[in-house]
């Protein structure tokens, strides 16, 4: 089974985020980055499927040159090779433009299964995976909690809401967006890290892929949540305070 896992590099979850001087993005000079959390689970699921079924795991990453660190991590954990669509400023593209780039990179690959995280921790559109499935012309299922290979395809378990799950059978090739927590993440072993140095990373650009994405998204302003609630203490005797409270609830909050 040939499995492609799409991974994204995002700022570390516990980074101290500061808005840049222009107020358009976060200051990224001293940020540390990590693999997008659901993507880490997608990679692990791909590696486990390969270990059971045989085949190959290819990591696909669209991101700036610095994303090479995240690609190296995927190779160290056991991906066989990687495709790096190397473009700066991909945040200006919408999920459709990004999925077009990724679909173009995958035309020659013809994977049996494409895995993505269900959404990214930074922009969080949750759309890139499903649009990619449409562009590749394969069925998809989202928020996957379990994948089983069976005759002629796969059986997957989707997480719905409020404790509900749905089992779906689907043919291959297919695309799944993976939920965090589906499996137990492995560590990159020291031997794996050393071996990763010799694995192939193919670098591609949008121009080479024949895709000219348009920058459709412009961040107007980024800001920290602004405090909008105020606490008022009603002073005076209980009777007076209660009367004031009722008045406020009637005329200001309008809940009485």
């Amino acid at each position, binding site marked *: 089974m040939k499995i492609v896992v799409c991974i994204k590099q995002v700022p*570390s979850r516990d980074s101290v985020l500061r808005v840049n001087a222009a107020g358009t993005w976060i200051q990224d000079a001293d940020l540390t980055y990590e693999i997008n959390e659901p993507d880490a689970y997608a990679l692990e699921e791909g590696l486990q499927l390969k270990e059971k079924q045989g085949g190959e795991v290819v990591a696909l990453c669209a991101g700036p040159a610095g994303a090479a660190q995240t690609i*190296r991590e995927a190779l160290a954990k056991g991906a066989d090779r990687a495709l790096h669509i190397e473009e700066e400023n991909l945040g200006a593209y919408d999920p459709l433009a990004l999925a077009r780039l990724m679909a173009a990179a995958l035309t020659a690959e013809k994977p049996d299964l494409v895995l993505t995280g269900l959404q990214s921790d930074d922009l969080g559109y949750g759309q890139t995976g499903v649009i990619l499935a449409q562009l590749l012309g394969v069925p998809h299922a989202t*928020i996957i909690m379990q994948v089983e290979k069976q005759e002629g395809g796969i059986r997957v378990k989707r997480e719905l809401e409020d404790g509900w799950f749905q089992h779906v059978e689907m043919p291959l090739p297919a695309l799944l967006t993976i939920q965090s927590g589906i499996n137990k993440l492995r560590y990159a072993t*020291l031997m794996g890290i050393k071996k990763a140095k010799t694995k192939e990373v193919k670098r591609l650009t949008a121009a080479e892929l024949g895709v000219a994405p348009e920058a459709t998204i412009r961040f107007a302003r980024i800001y920290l949540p602004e405090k909008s609630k105020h606490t008022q203490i009603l002073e005076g005797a209980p009777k007076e305070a209660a009367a004031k409270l009722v008045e406020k609830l009637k005329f200001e909050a309008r809940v009485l």
Partner: protein
Amino acid sequence: MIAPGDGWIREEQHGIAGKSTHLNGYPTIEKYMQPFRGVDYLLVDSLFNEEELLVRQTARQFVEDRLMPVIRDCYRDARFPSELIPEMARLGFLGANLEGYGCAGMSNVEYGLIMQELERGDSGLRSFVSVQGALVMYPIYAYGSEQQKQHWLPRLQSGEAIGCFGLTEPGFGSNPAGMKTTARRVGECWVLNGEKTWITNGTASQVAVVWARTDDGIRGFLVEKGTPGYTTSDIHGKWSMRASVTSSLAFADCKIPSANMLPGAKGLKGPLSCLSQARYGIGWGVIGAAMDCYETARQYSIIRKQFDDKPIASHQLVQEKLAWMITEITKAQLLAVHAGRLKDQRKIEPAHISMLKRNNVAIALECARLSRDLLGANGITDEFPIMRHLCNLETVKTYEGTDHIHALVIGERVTGVAAYK
């Protein structure tokens, strides 16, 4: 209830995104502390390459996931978490900077970063890995016969066998040249007599690298557990390194095959070269302990309020202590990285390693003391890691060459005059 959709079922299983984040009751201040994410004031990370950062990430995550949940109880119960050995072996931590025989072949900087992360957890865990790699696997690797290497290195790398290193004696610590343990040649055998003490992993070991006086000078021997005349016992009552096994070894007419001598090591420079390996690892390891103390104190000072509902971080005396600590930790990091690069270029000398070990242990100990001070009474409890690190670092100051001895090594280097006697 009828399933609202095709194939829908109801279960108690959720992905991380669906998990409950409500806190039960009122969490203590400890619950507000962030998981350890490293300390990097001066963009020291820019000195590391991709592989080095990945190695550190693996070690850091392992310690966070596997050691942190158990270390407090291990320390209370004076128990080494031996259940972690197989996974550390599988990840490649044992003998990580050696080549071949199943070893990971890491650079010395990568090895150092592993030590840093392990000691961020606990000096006892780092000591275990230091002893196994630098004091047992290294002498076999550097001075052993091919047969000894083939037999022991894969077993030691995989954690199937544990080793210990017997140099220190009850009467001879800083002055190993005075050792009284002897090995006498009798036919095809060596017969060992004497006693070794303060031996990490002693009772847990399948093999001991033992240094003894012979007619031919000091030589190294591999003594296997169960050899008649070889007994071990644990040292109890330690207020330091409680999550580490510390033992005494005794040899009473202990007869071992002549093939168990390390052919390549003759004289004191054999064991001293092993100590250089281990001291190098300590120079990195204690940065981890210092980082953990500093980071705990830093976070605590921002959360803890005292006067006028203001955090204690707003006080100048608190800030001065944090400033001192982060400056010293940064200097220690730079010293370690530079020493590591020199070691990778085979340019490092024992006197360089003395400076690394002595300085970094001293500042780590001071960071532990200052951090304890900043946490006030909370600092003495085992809700926080500081007192544990502080107690451990008192051992680290003494073992593998005391602070004093390393000062004399540096003194001899700059004056040409030895002041050991």
